[in-house]
C-alpha cells in the first residue's frame, strides 16, 4: 500500500530540537512534512500560494498521484495557465500532520518504540496542521504568503492560518468550509470511524503489526462520506435508478443499482491510497475545529484588526458545508472590519463542486488572486 518514500515529493525533516507542539500538550519530534511545490518563488519571495488539502487529499494538488496514477486532486484549478497559475505563483501543498502520504502520521514509525504509532499517535487538530505548515514555510524562508487557499478541511486551515498568523497571510480564500464542524458533520464522521473500528482487521489500530488491513471498514467509511460530498440532484442526474450491468433486479444484495456499484468502487479504490488510522485522526481534527471557541465564542474576535484580504466561496447545493456556514464567516469578518468578498456559486454538484470544473470558481480564483497580487505589487 505504501509507495516508496521517494514518491512522496519533497521532505522536510525536523529533528528533536524543533518539535511540533500539539494542542493536546504532547510534542511530536522528530517529525517530517512531505510537500510539493509548483512554479518558481520570485526574488522578493512574494508570490507564494499555500494550498491546503481536504480530508482525503494530499500534497499532489497538481501532479500525478504516485499511488493511483491519477491527475492531482485540484488539476482543474492549479497548473500553468490555470486559475491558480503556476507560471505566475509559487504553489506549495503539504500533506497534513496525521496524514498518510509522507508527513508524520499514525502509520509512521514511532521512534520511541520502533513500531508504527497506531493509536499511540497523539490527537492532532486543525491548528496543529497549520502550525506544522508554518514550520515548513520557516524552513522555505517564506515570511508572508500571497494567499492561503483551501476547500473543506483545507478551508478550515485557511481560517486558522488567518486567525493565528494574520501577518503572514496577505490574502485568504476559504472555500466550501465552516468555522466549526456541525453536529451533522460530526455525526457522519462518527459513522465512518465506527465502520473502521468495527472491522475485525482493524485490530485496535495495530493492523500494521498484525499484517492485516481494515479495508472493508475504511471502504464503508468512504462510501458514507462520499454521499455527503454529492447532492441529491447530482445523484439523480448521474445515476437515477439505473441498473448496473443487468436488465432486471437480481432479487439479492448484489450491486443492482449503478449508484451502489459507484459507491463500492469509490470505497474500494480509496483503501488503496489511504490509511484507516489517518482517517480516524483527520476526521477527529475536523470535529474538534471550532475557531470561535478559541476567541471567547465570538468568531469576529478571531479576525480583529486583520489586514488580510478574504474571499469566501460556497456552492448552492453543498449541504455538508452549506452557504449559511460560509456566510457566518463572512459576517464575522465584516464585523471585524476585515476586507472580505463572498461568492456563492450555482452548482448542483454538492460539496465536491470545488474540485470540479466550475468556470465561475475559476473566474473567482483568478480575479481575487490577481487583485491580491496587483495590490501587493507581485511581479
Amino acid at each position: 500500500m505504501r509507495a516508496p518514500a521517494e514518491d512522496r515529493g519533497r521532505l522536510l525533516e525536523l529533528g528533536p530540537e524543533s518539535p511540533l507542539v500539539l494542542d493536546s500538550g504532547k510534542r511530536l519530534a522528530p517529525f517530517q512534512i512531505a510537500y510539493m511545490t509548483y512554479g518558481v518563488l520570485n526574488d522578493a519571495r512574494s508570490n507564494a500560494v499555500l494550498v491546503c488539502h481536504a480530508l482525503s487529499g494530499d500534497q499532489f494538488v497538481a501532479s500525478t498521484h504516485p499511488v493511483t496514477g491519477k491527475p492531482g486532486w485540484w488539476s482543474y484549478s492549479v497548473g500553468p495557465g490555470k486559475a491558480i497559475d503556476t507560471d505566475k505563483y509559487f504553489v506549495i501543498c503539504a500533506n497534513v500532520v496525521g496524514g498518510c502520504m509522507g508527513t508524520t502520521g499514525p502509520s509512521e514509525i514511532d521512534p520511541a518504540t520502533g513500531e508504527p504509532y497506531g493509536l499511540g499517535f497523539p490527537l492532532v487538530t486543525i491548528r496543529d496542521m497549520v502550525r506544522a505548515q508554518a514550520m515548513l514555510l520557516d524552513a522555505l524562508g517564506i515570511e508572508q504568503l500571497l494567499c492561503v487557499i483551501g476547500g473543506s478541511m483545507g478551508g478550515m486551515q485557511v481560517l486558522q492560518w488567518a486567525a493565528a498568523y494574520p501577518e503572514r497571510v496577505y490574502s485568504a480564500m476559504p472555500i466550501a468550509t465552516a468555522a466549526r464542524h456541525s453536529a451533522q458533520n460530526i455525526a457522519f464522521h462518527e459513522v465512518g470511524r465506527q465502520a473502521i473500528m468495527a472491522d475485525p482487521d482493524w485490530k485496535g489500530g495495530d493492523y500494521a503489526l498484525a499484517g492485516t488491513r481494515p479495508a472493508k471498514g475504511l471502504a464503508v467509511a468512504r462510501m458514507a462520506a462520499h454521499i455527503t460530498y454529492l447532492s441529491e440532484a447530482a445523484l439523480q442526474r448521474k445515476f437515477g435508478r439505473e441498473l448496473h450491468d443487468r436488465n432486471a433486479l437480481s432479487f439479492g444484495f448484489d450491486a443492482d443499482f449503478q449508484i451502489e456499484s459507484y459507491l463500492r468502487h469509490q470505497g474500494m479504490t480509496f483503501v488503496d491510497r489511504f490509511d484507516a488510522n489517518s482517517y480516524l485522526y483527520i476526521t477527529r481534527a475536523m470535529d474538534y475545529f471550532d475557531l470561535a471557541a478559541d476567541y471567547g465564542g465570538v468568531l469576529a474576535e478571531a479576525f480583529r484588526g486583520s489586514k488580510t484580504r478574504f474571499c469566501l466561496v460556497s456552492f448552492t447545493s453543498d449541504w455538508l458545508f452549506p452557504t449559511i456556514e460560509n456566510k457566518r464567516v463572512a459576517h464575522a469578518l465584516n464585523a471585524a472590519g476585515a476586507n472580505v468578498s463572498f461568492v456563492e456559486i450555482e452548482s448542483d454538484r454538492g460539496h465536491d463542486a470545488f474540485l470540479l470544473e466550475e468556470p465561475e470558481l475559476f473566474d473567482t480564483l483568478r480575479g481575487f488572486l490577481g487583485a491580491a497580487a496587483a495590490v501587493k505589487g507581485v511581479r
Partner: protein
Amino acid sequence: MNRETPIAARPSSALRPDLAAIAEMIPPAARVLDIGCGDGSLLEYLVQAKQVDGRGLELSQQNVNHCVARGLSVVQGDADTDLSEYPSGVFDIVILSQTIQATRHPSLVLRQLLRIGTRTIVSFPNFGHWRIRLSLLIEGRMPVTKTLGHRWYDTPNIHLCTIADFRELARGAGAHIEKALALTGTERTRPMHPNAWGPNIFAEGAIFLLAKEPVPEKAIRQ
C-alpha cells in the same frame, strides 16, 4: 464642486453621470463602502483612479460574482438586514447609490449608513420631478419614466421620495447636509441648496453628502 460638472470633460467619463458626480466627492485613498454596488463600475473606478480601499455590498449574487472576478471586494448581502454587522465608523465614506428607494426601511438604512461611515453619500431618483407630477395629474396613472421605468406592480422601488422628502428624512436622522447636487436630464449635475424648491421640480434625481455630525470645513476634501 461649485460649478457644473460637464461629464464628458472628466476622467470619470466612462461612468454614468450620477456615479461620476459621486466619484468627484471621494477623497483619494479613502475607505469606501459601496452599498448596492451593482456590477462594480463605480467601485472599480474608485479603486483604480483614486486608490481607495473599496468594499461593496450587493444583493444580486450574479453581480457579486462578477465584481469579485474583476478583483473587487464585494459581499452578497441585503442593505435592509446586513448593515448592522458592520462596526461603527470604519469607513470614511459609505455610498448608497440609487438604492434607498428600493429598501424596505429607508430610515433605518440611513441611520446605519451614518453610523458606519464618517460621511454618507446617497443618490436617488426625484419623485417630485415635474414630468412625474404631470403624469399623475393628467393621466391619473402611476408614472413610468426613463429613470423609473417599472410599472407600479413590478417595481423594486417601493419607497420613492422627493428631494424635499429626503431632506426631511436626513435631518430627522440627525444628519448634517454638507452638499447637495441636482441631477438634470441633460446628464449634468449642479450644486443646489437643499432647501431650494426649484430642484424638487426640475431635477430628475439628487445626490446628498451627509455627515452624522458637522465635520470641520478644513477636514472636507474634495
